[in-house]
């Protein structure tokens, strides 16, 4: 807030000194004309039609001449690693590379908007590695040419240990720019102390009994997906007409006062404070919140559908330490490291062999620790089975920016209403 702490008489005098007259108007138009002459008309973009299919030598071009600097700056989301960062410590011990880990990403839109001007100017964003979700901004990152093509010769663990399903995902076939950090499920979390009945269906988010206590995501894709699924529409195959119908459904929820607010990752905080009782939620967050704060919240995948998404490692083209970054990526595909991460964050693990490792870890423990690790190994949220996937829907892929903008223009006014 940039108002003076002590607006003295001098300031007041300055503020209230003059009247404005026609001369001022002339002055202003003069200034505007001058400014117009000085300011550029038109803003250049970075996009090129072939951006998503890189030139064959792009990998070699990016990686040649890069040297390891012994450090890596890692931008990630909150609730995505044990706060003691055991995996990073092991990495530093094994490679000597120091990791600066920051939980600066709370939602994709703001993250893209924040780094976009810097990347466009070809500047270092201060991060060599970031975790981005497949979706609207993922495509914007790729189409703008902001992501470094990955050199798969530097990812042996990924080749050996990653679930093959991840190697051919629609948003980045063949892992040209990204490999998964983890997948996750968007479902519903609620506080059973406040809600005395089981929550099972999407319709529960529209229940007037929870008036003013329901949270939804402010991310337009997360929000739109739930609107569509509540109407029985599969978001992955949805049409603009479906979007409009879903928007109506979501407007209903809002105008009835059922909605408290639209959240980014701060929904966890809101749930903890009792601001919301029931909310759209990401699968692993609730598990971690319960562990770290001793709360007792419940996460469910609604019977009529949840969504599954993938958060991905990506290296910005302007990264100062890409070699160290890709080394760190591959480190997370060591089975023991993948297991240790999954044990804490409880998100879908992209390394199938980690399951056996977690069972082994469980066998070495006793009591509560053992039980909880065994539960992780069995958890459908960490290792979903085919039946679980049947309930889950994928994000819609937008072919063009125009289509994406149309989508945004339908759902944005709801969030910002």
């Amino acid at each position, binding site marked *: *807030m*940039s*108002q*003076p*702490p*002590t607006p*003295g*008489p*001098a*300031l007041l*005098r*300055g*503020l209230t*000194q*003059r009247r*404005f007259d026609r*001369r*001022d108007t002339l*002055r*202003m138009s*003069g*200034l505007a004309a001058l400014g117009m002459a000085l*300011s*550029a008309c038109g*803003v*250049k973009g970075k996009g090129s039609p072939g951006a998503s299919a890189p030139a064959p030598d792009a990998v070699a071009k990016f990686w040649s001449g890069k040297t390891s600097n012994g450090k890596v700056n890692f931008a990630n989301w*909150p*609730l995505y690693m044990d*706060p003691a960062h055991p995996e990073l410590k092991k990495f530093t011990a094994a490679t000597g590379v120091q990791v*600066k880990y*920051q*939980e*600066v990403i*709370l939602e994709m839109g703001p993250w893209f908007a*924040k*780094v976009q*001007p*810097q*990347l*466009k*100017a*070809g*500047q270092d*964003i*201060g*991060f060599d590695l970031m975790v981005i979700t497949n979706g609207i901004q993922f495509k914007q990152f790729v189409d703008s040419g902001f992501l470094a093509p990955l050199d798969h010769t530097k990812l042996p663990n990924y080749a050996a240990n990653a679930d093959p399903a991840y190697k051919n995902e629609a948003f980045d076939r063949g892992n040209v720019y990204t490999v998964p950090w983890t997948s996750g499920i968007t479902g519903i979390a609620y506080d059973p102390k406040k809600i005395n009945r089981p929550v099972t269906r999407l319709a529960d988010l529209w229940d007037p009994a929870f008036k003013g206590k329901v949270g939804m995501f402010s991310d337009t894709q997360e929000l739109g997906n739930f609107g569509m699924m509540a109407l029985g529409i599969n978001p992955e195959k949805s049409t603009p007409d479906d979007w409009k119908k879903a928007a109506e459904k979501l407007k209903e929820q809002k105008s009835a006062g059922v909605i408290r607010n639209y959240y*980014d*990752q*701060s929904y*966890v*905080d809101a749930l*903890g*404070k009792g601001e919301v009782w029931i909310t759209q939620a990401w699968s692993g967050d609730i598990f971690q919140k319960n562990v*770290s*704060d*001793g709360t007792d919240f419940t996460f469910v995948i609604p019977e009529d559908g949840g969504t599954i998404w993938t958060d991905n490692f990506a290296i910005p083209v302007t990264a100062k330490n890409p070699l160290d970054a890709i080394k760190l990526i591959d480190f997370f595909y060591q089975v023991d490291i993948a297991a240790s991460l999954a044990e804490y964050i409880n998100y879908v693990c992209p390394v199938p062999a980690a399951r056996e490792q977690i069972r082994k870890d469980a066998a070495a423990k006793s009591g509560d620790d053992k039980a909880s690790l065994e539960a992780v190994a069995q958890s459908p949220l960490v290792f979903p089975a085919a039946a679980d996937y049947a309930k889950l829907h994928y994000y819609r892929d937008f072919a063009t920016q125009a289509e994406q903008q149309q989508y945004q223009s339908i759902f944005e006014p709801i969030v910002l209403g």
Partner: protein
Amino acid sequence: MTGRRVLYAYTWLVIAWLTLPVLVMVLFGFNDTPGRYNQTWDGFTLKWYGRVFELDELTRALVTSLAVAVVTMLAAGALGTGIGYALGRYRFRGSGTVNLVMFAAIASPELVMGASLLTLFVSLGVGPGVVTITIAHVMFCISFVAVVVRARVLTLDRSIEEAAADLGATPWTTFWRVTFPIILPAVMSGMLLAFALSIDDFVVTNFTAGTATTFPLWIWGSTRVGLPPQVNVMGTLIFLIGVLIAVITSIRSRPQRR
């Protein structure tokens, strides 16, 4: 005289209301919270004071804020004093335009200033960062410094300067030996104002920062996922330092004013 009593009580009530959030902030700096969410009272501890600089990013954000504020204070102080002095002392063509721009800069919503700077940087392809934050802060502080300095120059007694000139001082000597010391307090208070505006600015900074982080931006970012008690401790310490500076300056300036 009961009306007076009511007013007295009312004034204190308002003061209490204003102070309440500050007390809560100070209190939660002593909270022995276990998790990452410092939102319920879990007992008294002093440990966060010992660990106040434990969070590198928070410390760095604070240092960035201080550096930006100091540069802003100096730059806006110099540029604003130039404008304020010229407006107070000379009649010249174009002074109306300068006045208008300054009024507009003070009256414009911060949000719009920040947003328009972002559009400028985006259009020019300049990546935001600490430099653009500083540019923005200097921009919105210039007018405040200029207004304060102009007011002082306007009330300046010209006969003192004339006396100096009569005694054979060159205009240059007169300015530095006579005029400048008289307007110096105004320049100083303008600069302090600039420092205070800069260090607490959130809105304009948020638009011009890119991935750079200042103290208010860091707080804003981390409040959504749990604010560590160190923030409360730093807030408390900054509060105490500010109060201390204010008390010292008011005590020092008292004898001069009589």
